[in-house]
């Protein structure tokens, strides 16, 4: 187990290093000059040169990367070009909001996916099953921007059940969490369904039924407990999927998280923020995958640790 953990940790560290290198290089391959953005329209070549030197952009790429990693190790993500404030503070102040949104999305997708999967499995082959699976297909295919605006329009504007964007209470959280998690809900409903069908075919279920156990007990006590394991193991991977989803969802709902920060930074080519958010997101994704990898063998001993 220890060896497995050590292997996974070192793999994660390599992944993170790779992410910082790729992001760093990407932002310099884009043919746009951040100095021109900072210096503004009336800058002279001399002024731009001054700013370039001040930001250390005149040094060779390898040297710039080395400085970046050095500061990163100390927790310094640099200073935002446009806002002149430390990137680390910006990210830290917005991270709780994003984590809350992701938590809400995980709860939403479980609350939607698991019952839907159970329902479809119980009515396998019938209309109910077909409807549920079609809906799951739709939820996975609908762009989150469209979904978010539609939910806002109908439930917040028309019906007034929820506030139109904002942050601070449970009612603010529900619509964005559902938007972010709905696709995952569709995914999990299918997983739940096939997992349940697989389990309901097992001998011990047949035995339980033969013993006279009610169908409800069979489903909810014996089958569900085992069918849900693959779903739980997959939750860690959701972190990765959600990290990209928050960029759109936070923007639509005015949710002050790091996704919204990333969106704004991309528009103004604020490289320190782009790199900082990417690194932090990568950190969480790697952590999420690590947890998923660690939980999976614990839940299902049949999975061999490799």
């Amino acid at each position, binding site marked *: 187990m220890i060896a497995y953990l050590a292997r996974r940790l070192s793999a994660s560290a390599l992944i993170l290093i790779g992410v910082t290198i790729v992001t760093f290089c990407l932002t310099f391959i*884009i043919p746009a000059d951040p100095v*021109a953005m900072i210096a*503004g329209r009336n800058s002279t*070549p001399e002024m731009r040169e001054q700013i370039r030197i001040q930001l250390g952009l005149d040094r060779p790429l390898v040297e710039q990367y080395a400085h970046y990693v050095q500061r990163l190790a100390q927790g310094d993500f640099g200073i935002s070009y446009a806002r002149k*404030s430390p990137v680390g503070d910006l990210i830290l102040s917005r991270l709780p909001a994003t984590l809350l949104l992701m938590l809400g999305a995980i709860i939403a997708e479980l609350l939607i996916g698991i019952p839907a999967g159970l329902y479809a499995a119980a009515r396998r082959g019938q209309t109910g099953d077909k409807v549920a699976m079609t809906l799951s297909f739709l939820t996975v295919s609908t762009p989150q921007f469209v979904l978010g605006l539609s939910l806002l329009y109908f439930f917040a504007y028309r019906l007034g059940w929820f506030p139109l964007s904002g942050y601070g209470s449970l009612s603010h959280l529900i619509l964005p969490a559902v938007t972010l998690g709905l696709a995952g809900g569709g995914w999990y409903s299918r997983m739940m369904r096939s997992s349940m069908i697989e389990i309901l075919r097992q001998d011990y279920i047949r035995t339980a039924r033969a013993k006279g156990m009610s169908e409800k007990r069979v489903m909810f006590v014996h089958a569900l407990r085992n069918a849900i394991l693959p779903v739980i193991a997959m939750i860690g991977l959701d972190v990765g999927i959600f990290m990209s989803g928050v960029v759109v969802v936070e923007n639509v709902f005015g949710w002050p998280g790091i996704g919204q920060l990333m969106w704004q930074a991309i528009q103004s080519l604020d490289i320190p923020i782009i790199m900082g958010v990417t690194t932090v997101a990568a950190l969480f994704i790697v952590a999420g995958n690590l947890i998923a990898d660690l939980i999976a063998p614990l839940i299902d001993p049949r999975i061999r640790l490799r």
Partner: protein
Amino acid sequence: MRSILIASAAALALLATAPAALAQSPKQGGAAVVTFNNDLTTLDPQVGYDWQNWSVIKSIFDGLMDYKPGTTELEPDLAESYTVSDDGLTYTFKLRDGIKFHNGRPMTPADVKYSLERAVDPKTQSPGGGYFSAIEGYDALAGGKASELTGIRIVDDKTISFTLTRPDATFLHLMAINFAYVVPKEEVEKAGADWGKKPVGTGAFKFVEWVPGQRIALERNKDYFRQGVPYLDKLTFEFGQDPTVAVLRLKNGEIDIVGDGIPPAQFAEIMADPANKDLVAIGDQLQTGYVTMNVTQPPFDNLKVRQAVNMAINKDRIVRLINNRAVPAVQALPPAMPGYNTDNKGYAYDPDGAKKLLAEAGQPDGFTTELYAMNVDPNPRIAQAIQQDLAAIGVKAEIRSLAQAEVIAAGGSGKAPMIWSGGMAWIADFPDPANFYYGILGCAGAVEGGWNWSKYCNKELDARAQNADGMVKADEGEKRIGEWKGVFDEVLKDAPWAPVFNEKRFTYHSARLGGDSSLFTDPIHIPVNYDYIFAKDAQ
């Protein structure tokens, strides 16, 4: 009977006029909420340079000069009066009495000097420091060799004088621009890197708080030196609001102004709704949308080719494409700008004439080129319309739809043969034709990284422009504008650009906000002049 008739007639007359009278007079009090999609970057007047924070900074700070609200007319602001020497090289400003910073300290001429020096000091990284290059001592300070602007002298505790190295007719405009706004040294130094987040100024609104990414709250400065303004007690800016959602919130009565303007997708629907008739203010902007042609890249080095492009573009169709949110432009300057030549009708839409010119230029079968545009709607659609117009005269233009920063980079480096300027350029920083020339049409802007994307450099016109800016005497104003008219007439003849349209500004606001529509589309306090709008339901 008669007396009853007269009485009721009088009563009716009173009732008829009363609402009009009530609606017009501003009331003191109330609050307003403005939404923006993006967080403001900074409230530091020497640094802030985007259209969102421009007017917020104008409400927190003041400069020596300002403009009459809703207009482009200069008037003294922090200065009570000013005199200009005969040779135009010395400006002396007498400051008003009783001006206090929000922290209570009275403002002095030393603060004015400090603020201008801060704008020029390279450590501040101000995008606007270059504007003040005419002040004596600029080169030394900007080059990092000095620590003060020797041209600014404190005459006494109420008077300050500026000495220039050359006459600059735009100098008074420069004293009204954000980069010249007065800041208190002790607050700047105390706040350090946080200064942009904790502004302290002399303006109509006092800063209360900034929750990053969520909102900025301002409140009325009760000690503001102008009596009676601002009318609003509280002003709040909320961020991260998608404009589509903001429109819904406005209809719900939750917010008062959609700061980003009406989203293009909902424009037709909102304008068609009769309930919105008084709620959308329409005004002119000091803006032109144009196509640049790189005069150093053949075949655009041939005048006839450039003129042909001008004649090939169907401007009316493009304006219709954007739901009439603009008017077709016939010259480089926008109609609201002094120097606009109402007699110059530019190039008429004439595709056959364009084809003839192309043949004369040695391109009878047309040619292939690239048209760069910003990838945010409606610019790709406009680029497509231009592409179709060019195809009709035989010019095949491949569209390069890219992110704003990339197009700007391609223009600055001279790589792009044609660029549609929409979404990127050019709105004037101040209402003077000089601001529409040097950076984008003059030789100084035609360098690597400059904003003169057509790399047009006409030394003769540059000399004429400099000459015009030397006419600083009070009675030379008209002559100067006449000179500028001449310069831009020549530019139009040389056709480094094809001007397409002048955008109008549309500000959608709630019914409870009152004020002249020019305040909601103020050409200087973009987008809204917060100092003078009021709440109709104030108690």
